């Protein structure tokens, strides 16, 4: 959900809404942009967001814009013209600011989770994805309600185990948790070796299997712009071969994936149903998948736009 607070709040309420026992958020939870809101000597604020210049005179206007920015997955930051100059001139200062805002945001989200899920019979799993800084890991793990399943074998219930990783294969963006296919394979093998019943296991792997149809993203040129030919956007597979091999080798019950926003869908690899719910976070739409498991099989599923 890439920092969208609205989507996160929907996620927290999803268990209640869908009458689900378990809610799983498989990564890419932090935002990608800071939107400066600049304070001027006249006690007014200015900001530029989604193509609109804002001139804010009241606290209410300020709070509303900050909420809108957060709901869209970005970080509002009140600043001054002087500080903006410093941020422009100092990359490490900007990186520190990003880290600070991400951490504060995740802390806030942990609080939201605990306030709303405490006492409820809903298990909440949140793991960082390849796009997420390592700075948030400790915050997630410090929560009493949230379980970070990264790297572990988790018992969802008495019938189903789950192994999870938010790492992905190398992307053009040099993300914090991009690793080689060999390293990813190693992580998966380490977890898989600890699973007692692979037939009933869930692979909660952020990255989808390579060339599965769940990993089709716009092909990019060297400037990271999608390539258009003949009036059509060109797509190419960009999932993980390590994950693809693992799904084919182990044939778990279910594969849960994300990572590629455009490739919402579901396929069956052998006996394994793999799902990518896609993403529509900037509009505040929570894309997900509602899955009903019985003891030995996937009884039903449905992609959702909540």
């Amino acid at each position, binding site marked *: 959900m890439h920092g969208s607070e609205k989507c996160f709040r929907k996620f927290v309420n999803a268990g209640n809404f869908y009458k689900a026992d378990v809610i799983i958020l498989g990564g890419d939870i932090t935002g990608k942009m800071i939107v400066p809101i600049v304070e001027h000597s006249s006690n007014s604020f200015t900001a530029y967001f989604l193509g609109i210049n*804002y001139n804010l005179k009241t606290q209410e206007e300020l709070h509303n814009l900050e909420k809108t920015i957060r709901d869209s997955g970005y970080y509002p930051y009140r600043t001054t013209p002087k500080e903006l100059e410093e941020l422009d001139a100092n990359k490490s200062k900007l990186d520190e600011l990003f880290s600070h805002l991400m951490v504060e945001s995740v802390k806030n989200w942990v609080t939201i989770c605990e306030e709303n899920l405490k006492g409820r019979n809903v298990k909440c799993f949140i793991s960082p994805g390849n796009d997420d800084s390592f700075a948030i890991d400790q915050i997630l793990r410090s929560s009493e309600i949230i379980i970070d399943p990264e790297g572990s074998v988790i018992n969802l219930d008495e019938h189903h185990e789950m192994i999870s990783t938010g790492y992905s294969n190398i992307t053009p963006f040099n993300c914090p948790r991009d690793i080689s296919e060999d390293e990813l394979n190693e992580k998966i093998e380490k977890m898989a070796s600890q699973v007692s019943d692979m037939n009933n296991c869930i692979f909660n792997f952020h990255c989808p299997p390579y060339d599965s149809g769940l990993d089709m993203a716009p092909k990019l040129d060297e400037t990271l712009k999608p390539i258009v030919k003949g009036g059509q956007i060109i797509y190419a597979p960009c999932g993980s071969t390590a994950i693809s091999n693992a799904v084919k080798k182990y044939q778990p019950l279910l594969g849960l994936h994300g990572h590629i926003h455009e490739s919402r869908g579901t396929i069956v690899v052998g006996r394994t149903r793999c799902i990518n719910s896609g993403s529509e976070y900037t509009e505040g739409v929570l894309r997900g998948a509602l899955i009903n498991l019985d003891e030995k099989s996937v009884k039903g599923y449905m992609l959702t736009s909540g």
Partner: protein
Amino acid sequence: MAEKRVYVREASGLVRGIGALDALFICLAGIAPAAGRFLANLAIVSWPGTTIWLWLTLGAIMCAVHGFLYAQIGGALPRSGGDYILTSRTLHPALGFMANWALVIYMSLVIGGMVPLINSQGLANTFWALGLVYNNPALIDLGFQFLTPNWIFIVGTISIVATALLLCLPQKVWLRVFEAIMLLSIGVVIVQMIIFLTTTHQQFVNAWNSFPLLPSYDTVINTAVESGLTYAPPAITPTLQAALLAFWLFFGYIFSAFFAGEVKEYAKSIPVAILGSLAVVYIGDIVVMGPGTAVAGDKFIAALGWLFFVTPGALPVGLGQYDFFSTVLLPNPIWIVIVGVAMVTQMVTIFMAYLVITSRSMFAWAFDRILPEKVAYVSEKWRSPIVAVLITFGIAEIGLVFSTYTVIPIYFNWLFAFCFVTVIASFSAILFPFVKKDIFEKAPAFVKYKIAGKVPLMSVVGAIVLGWFLFMAYSIYTVPAIAGPITPETIVVMLGIFALGLIVYYISRSYRLKKEAIDIYLASKEIPPA
């Protein structure tokens, strides 16, 4: 004044979007311009006095408003695309499915119904023109053969099967074909424009009269008048009455709503793409049809159209007359074949564009579990939506059989049904700013703009489009010349198809609840935030 500044995190998967020009090209791909020019003949014959340039202008304006609404829909829900999700989220999932179901059924049938255009505008015109150049009656007779039911069926089936097979191949293969067709079409338009701009009326008359196998220019007009043609000089009133037909000339620009998520600064690019593609096609038609009409003479064009509809087979001239005129003025076999190929292949682009809508709709239905997931099956080898292609073109073949050998098409009126599909979508658009306030307020400026700070522009545009399409439905109902007669059976069939959509939805819902304990009603229902 705010600094235009945001800070983007490095090492994030933020992708630059495609620009407005690429987006415009995508929209252009959905409008096969020359294929609809026969509507000009229909307009002139049915409403004598129709002024072509004004008729085109009115059609473009109407489409611009309609297109702007779809730009807003795409801007509001860029990843969802189209009006299926809009209606599902705003009104009710059953209504969204019902309207989309009807759209897919009719669109698929009409692919088959459009096949005769390949024969008349493409093949027949080509062989007639070759027959005139070589003074060969056998070639002219062959042209007429293509207008017979069996040949329409044969050519239609080959076209449908060929397009289906093409679209089952990898994207890079059919993209090359698509690019070639687009370049060919643009090249033909440019050459035609040059031909018409460098020819006088008298030169056209002389060229026409130089073919012994054609009746003379004056004979054509006299024959039409004697058989009942009512000619009127260009006037505004008949042009206004005929304007509804012009809308269908430009239909296809709304495909942008499906790829809005990949467009950079879609707030600016999407409207530019939609309105830009309309402008390009409009200009292309104006520069061909305007000079073409001046060169041939509007009375002559009216006469040809009249004779085609009233006494088919009397003249070796079909619809798509501007293409034929260009071959009269440039009677070169290579040029004639090029024009013919361009005409035939443009129909392929229409089929492909329709398939974009039908296949994405079927995918959405499968993901929403209304239909079996096999409907969304994608070939592992070629990544092509084989089942959706087969379903669409299977229905198209049924449409071809209906339109070739039966009178059943009278009961399946695509234009009439599309009016009501659009009424539902525009009603959703009117309500969207109020019912889905949060999503609306996050939308780009051109979507969430409010007139006088109070009235959502989207609601106003939705109301205009709703009113206009209701008017179009009424006009189609009362004026058979627009889209064919609307009989009680036509209305019953249409209501039946819509109703069948509702039945399918509720049967699916009941099945999923019982077998899988999954309620498909929740597929697009908004979760209240904690």
